[in-house]
């Protein structure tokens, strides 16, 4: 299975947020979507997970049409979205946030195995299962958001700015964890990031968005070497 986005157009009222965007992510690969603020990165992810409506174009995860249906049906097809800004329910406990991601799963034995795996992956969450999510640090909340998404046993994971508002050391840790998940669980990941360098370092491929258009795309190593990308997005 792969993610195939073709000529995608998304409008926000009169503003065209995404304009004829096409890209492909092969199964088991991590693709970074980078670009400045307002480039349309979050809109792109929100459209793929069913939160926003597309005006035109197509987006398929394998056979599954991502432009049709609500987020709750996409989750059941293996597509999980971690939205921008530590997407956890602050008023619920850590464990309730995790459980939330697996409520729809019928096989409760498998879900509790998944919970075990998530807690092994993020031991800090395991120590804080009964704490309310709003007592966690920024990094822990981001881990919880990713953990919640993993509880749905996704095949395609859409991550929106996991580095937002975190300290450099924590960012490094989160990025390494994401790379680890991709390799160990054979996940396909679309990682939207403002932190272009950090994202490119762990990504296999990347798409550079500029004002809703694809400015350039290719393998992450190529893009890091590209002088134009370096000047515009990496700052050196």
């Amino acid at each position, binding site marked *: 299975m792969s993610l195939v986005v073709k000529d995608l157009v998304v409008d926000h009222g009169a503003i065209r947020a995404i304009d004829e965007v096409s890209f492909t992510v092969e199964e088991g690969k991590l693709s970074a979507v980078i670009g400045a603020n307002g480039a349309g990165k979050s809109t792109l992810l929100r459209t793929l*997970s069913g939160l926003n409506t597309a005006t035109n174009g197509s987006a398929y995860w394998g056979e599954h049409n991502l432009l049709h249906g609500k987020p709750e049906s996409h*989750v059941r097809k293996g597509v*999980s*979205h971690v939205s921008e800004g530590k997407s956890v329910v602050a008023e619920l406990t850590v464990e*309730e946030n995790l*459980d939330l991601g697996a*409520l*729809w799963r019928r096989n409760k034995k498998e879900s509790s195995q998944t919970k075990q795996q998530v807690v092994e992956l993020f031991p800090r969450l395991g120590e804080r299962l009964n704490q309310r999510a709003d007592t966690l640090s920024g990094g822990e909340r981001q881990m919880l958001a990713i953990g919640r998404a993993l509880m*749905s046993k996704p095949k395609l994971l859409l991550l929106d700015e996991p580095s937002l508002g975190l300290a450099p050391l924590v960012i490094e840790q989160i990025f390494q964890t994401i790379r680890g998940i991709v390799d160990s669980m054979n996940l396909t990941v679309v990682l939207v990031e403002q932190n272009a360098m950090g994202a490119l370092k762990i990504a296999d491929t990347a798409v550079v968005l500029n004002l809703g258009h694809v400015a350039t795309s290719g393998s992450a190593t190529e893009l890091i070497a590209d002088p134009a990308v370096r000047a515009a997005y990496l700052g050196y």
Partner: protein
Amino acid sequence: MTQFINMLLIGIGAGSIYALMAIAMVLVWRSTRVINFAQAGMALLSTYIGFELVQKTGNFWIALPLAMVLGALFSALVEILLIRTLIRHSTSGPVAGIVPIIATLGLLGFIRAMIGFIWGNQDVQIQPPLSKIGFKVGQETIALSPMNLLVLITVLAMVLILGFIFQKTNLGLSLRASAYSPEIAQLAGVRVGAIRTIGWSIAGAAGAAAGLLQTVNGTGTVSPDSLEFSLLLTFGFIAAVIGGLESLPGAVLGAVVLGLVLAFVQIYISGTLVFIVAFALLLLVLLIRPQGFIGTKAGRRA
């Protein structure tokens, strides 16, 4: 001393029924961000249905759960047929967001008129299933009858069951997550639309129980313009707001406090002051602690 104990008993008894109404308001508010002014109308309708069921079955304790189930169904229908569409359509314009709330006012009038059309405008009578003569302690008769006691026990049982559902079950987790962060709940796979309908259903059941218990605990009569139902709506609403509007324990606390304050006024000052004091309490809480007894200052998170 007896007078003081009676005040406590009357206050808690009245408060327990306001609590059911307040719970209904909070559930609807949490699931759809709508203040349901039709709640009293829906409770009234359920009470009339309960009246029919008492006539048919001859047993109040069979009629009550049946009326609650029908009240839940009616409430679910209102959410699906009316509120859902209104919320979807009222996204822009000067009245955006309050359209569903105004619609509930319209629905309140509509239901009352319908009841008048079907059952006529005279009072109907529901026989209380238990004696309403107060227990005797020594030579004194206290303000607690077998009927009052059963109402209290019933309300307490319902609150405990609701609390259990909310805190310990998957349905409760879905309800809470959908209330706090509908988008995150959706991304986690919760069918938020269906959960909203369930929130309205539970509210409908709680409202039906409030209506029937209020009627048999009070005068036993009910009419389309029944003052008791206006009181139930007003006091349930005040209780919900002073309790924080977001929290079920808050709604119960608000209702009991309101019941006690009103009982105090009624017994020690004057029955004519009850309304003034109820609204003064509402304004006072809104001025001093707008987030209610239970509720965070930050209010709702996006």
